[in-house]
C-alpha cells in the first residue's frame, strides 16, 4: 500500500533510510493494531499447544462464530462510545428490554419481522434516553448507565413476572433462518451479522463525519466545540448506536436458544468490556479501533473455551476477564504518561 502523500517527503532520502522511515511510520500509526494482531496469533498458538484437541477441531470455531457475536456486536459501538469519552454499562439490560418488546409484539401479532423491528426500536429509544440523561441533564455516563441498567432490568422482571418465554414458534419464520440459521448449512449466520456489524462500524468510525467527531470529542471536547463540532448530537448518537446493537444482539442470543430469559445479557457485561479494552481502546477516550475490538472479542471468546478445555472451572473466566480489563486499561495509562 503506497501513500502518495508521504512519498514526496520520502523520496529525498536514500533508499535504505527510505525503507526504515516507511517502516517506522507504519509502526507508529498502526502500532496498537499490530499489537492486538500479535496477541491474537500468539494466544491462538498457546491455546493450540495447551489444548490441541479442542483448538484443532473445526467445531470449536463454529461455536465461536455463533456465540462471540452476542457480545461482539455490542462491543463494536461500545468502542465508539468509549472513544468519544463516554461509557455505557446498561447494554445487558437493553438486550433484555429489547426482547421484552420482541416477545410482546410476537405474542400479539405472531410476526417475527414486526417483533424484530419492535426490539430494535426499543433498543434505540432506550439508548436515546441514556444519551438524554448524559448529554441533556449532564450526568457522567458511567453513573447514568449504572442507574438505567438497574431500571431496565427491573422493568424486564416486573413486565415478565420474572419468568422466561419460549420462542420455539418463531423458528418457523424465514427471519429466524436469516438471523440465526446456517449459511450453506454450515456457517452460523450470527458470524455474518458480526462481520456486517464490523464493516458498518468501521465505515461509521473511519469514513463519516460522525466517526471523525467521535475521535475528536474523546480527545479534546473543548477543541471540538471551538471548531464547531456538534458535540451533543455526536454523543447522543453513540448511545443510540449502543442501544440498537444491544437489542439486535439480544434477539440473536435469544433466537439461538429459542428462549428468552429475563436475565438475558447479564453474563455479557464482562466479556464486552474486556473485548473493547483488550482491543486497544483507551478508557481516557480519543483512541481505539474497530479491528482491535473485533479481534479482542474473538480472543475473549477463545479464552472461555480454553479455560474449560484446559480443565479449569468456569470461575476462572471472571478472574481472567477482570485481569484483562485491568491490564489493558493500565497499559494505556502508562503509554499516555510516556507520551505526554
Amino acid at each position: 500500500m503506497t501513500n502518495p502523500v508521504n512519498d514526496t517527503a520520502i523520496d529525498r532520502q536514500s533508499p535504505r533510510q527510505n525503507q526504515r522511515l516507511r517502516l517506522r511510520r507504519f509502526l507508529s500509526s498502526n502500532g496498537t493494531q499490530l499489537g492486538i494482531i500479535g496477541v491474537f496469533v500468539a494466544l491462538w498458538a498457546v491455546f493450540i499447544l495447551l489444548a490441541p484437541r479442542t483448538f484443532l477441531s473445526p467445531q470449536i470455531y463454529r461455536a465461536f462464530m455463533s456465540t462471540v457475536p452476542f457480545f461482539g456486536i455490542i462491543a463494536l459501538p461500545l468502542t465508539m462510545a468509549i472513544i468519544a469519552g463516554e461509557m455505557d454499562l446498561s447494554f445487558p439490560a437493553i438486550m433484555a428490554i429489547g426482547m421484552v418488546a420482541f416477545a410482546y409484539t410476537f405474542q400479539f401479532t405472531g410476526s417475527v419481522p414486526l417483533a424484530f423491528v419492535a426490539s430494535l426500536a426499543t433498543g434505540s429509544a432506550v439508548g436515546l434516553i441514556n444519551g438524554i440523561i448524559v448529554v441533556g441533564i449532564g450526568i457522567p455516563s458511567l453513573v447514568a448507565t449504572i442507574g438505567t441498567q438497574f431500571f431496565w432490568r427491573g422493568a424486564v422482571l416486573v413486565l415478565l413476572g420474572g419468568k422466561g418465554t419460549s420462542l420455539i414458534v418463531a423458528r418457523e419464520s424465514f427471519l429466524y433462518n436469516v438471523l440465526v440459521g446456517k449459511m450453506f448449512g454450515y456457517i452460523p449466520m450470527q458470524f455474518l451479522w458480526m462481520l456486517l456489524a464490523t464493516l458498518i462500524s468501521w465505515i461509521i468510525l473511519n469514513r463519516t463525519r460522525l466517526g471523525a467527531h467521535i475521535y475528536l470529542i474523546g480527545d479534546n471536547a473543548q477543541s471540538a466545540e471551538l471548531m464547531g463540532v456538534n458535540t451533543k448530537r455526536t454523543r447522543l448518537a453513540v448511545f443510540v448506536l449502543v442501544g440498537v446493537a444491544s437489542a439486535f444482539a439480544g434477539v440473536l442470543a435469544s433466537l439461538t436458544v429459542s428462549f428468552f430469559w429475563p436475565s438475558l445479557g447479564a453474563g455479557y457485561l464482562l466479556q464486552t468490556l474486556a473485548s473493547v479494552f483488550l482491543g486497544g481502546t483507551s478508557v481516557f477516550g480519543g483512541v481505539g479501533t474497530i479491528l482491535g475490538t473485533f479481534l479482542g472479542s474473538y480472543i475473549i471468546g477463545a479464552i472461555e473455551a480454553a479455560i474449560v478445555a484446559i480443565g479449569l472451572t468456569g470461575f476462572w473466566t471472571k478472574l481472567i476477564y477482570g485481569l484483562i480489563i485491568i491490564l489493558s486499561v493500565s497499559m494505556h495509562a502508562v503509554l499516555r504518561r510516556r507520551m505526554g
Partner: protein
Amino acid sequence: MENNYRLEIKNISKTFGEVQSLRNVSFQLGQNEVVGLLGDNGAGKSTLIKIITGYHQPDEGEIYFNGQKVEKLSVPKARQLGVETVYQERALAELQALWRNIFLGRELQNRFGLLDVKRMKEETHNLMVKSMGFTSTAVDPDSKIGTFSGGEKQGVAIVRALYFDAEIIILDEPTMGLSLQETRKLINFVKSIKQAGKAAIFIDHNIFHVYSVADRVVVLDRGRVAGEFRTSDITLNDLMDKMYKIAETGHFD
C-alpha cells in the same frame, strides 16, 4: 459607510457566574481593516472574540455581518460567514493525526457523503510544505499532533485558519510559542490579509506587533472598551503611555 462594516457588534454583555467579562461592548470591523485588540490579562479579549466566533452566546447585544443582523450565532454559522480563528488555546486534538486537526469540524466529504480521507491528507501535505514550512521529513499528515513542538502546534492552528478562504481572520495571541523568524512570517501574513482585501482581528500582548500591523487598536479594560486609536494618529510611544495609564487608573488621562 456606517452600514458597510464587515462585522459590527452592538452593546454586548457577557457574564460568567459572578464575573462580568464584557459590559456593553460595541465594536466594528471594516471591510478591509486590521484591528488590534489590546488589554490586560482578563480584560475580556478572548471572550469578545469567542462571541464573534459563535462559541459563546452573549447575554445581551446584537451582532451584524455585512449589515445583516445574525441571530443565534453558532460556530458553524460563523465559519459559514467566513470567520476563521486561531484560538488562544489552539483548539487542537493532540492524540489525533495532523490531517484530522487541519480539517477539524470541516471534514471533506466525497459525493457519497463519506469522508474523503485521501484528499484531506493530500491537502494537508501541500499546506505543510507551502505554508507551514515543515522541514522534518518525519512529520507527515498521519503524525499525531501531540508529538509536535509548541511552535509547530501553533503553526498548525494558524495554517488551519488560512486554509479555508476566510473573510475575517481572528488571531488570539498567535505569536505565542513562535520563534522570531516565525513571528515575522506571521506579521507579514497579517499584512497580506490586508492586501488581499480581507479583514482581521489581531490580539497580542506585544504592543509592537499590534502597532505594526493594525489600522486601528481597540483597548479593553475590565470588560469595557476603554478607548480606540487609529495607528496613523498616534505614535507607538504615546500608545504605550496610554496603555500604562489604563492599567493603573482604568482611563486614559
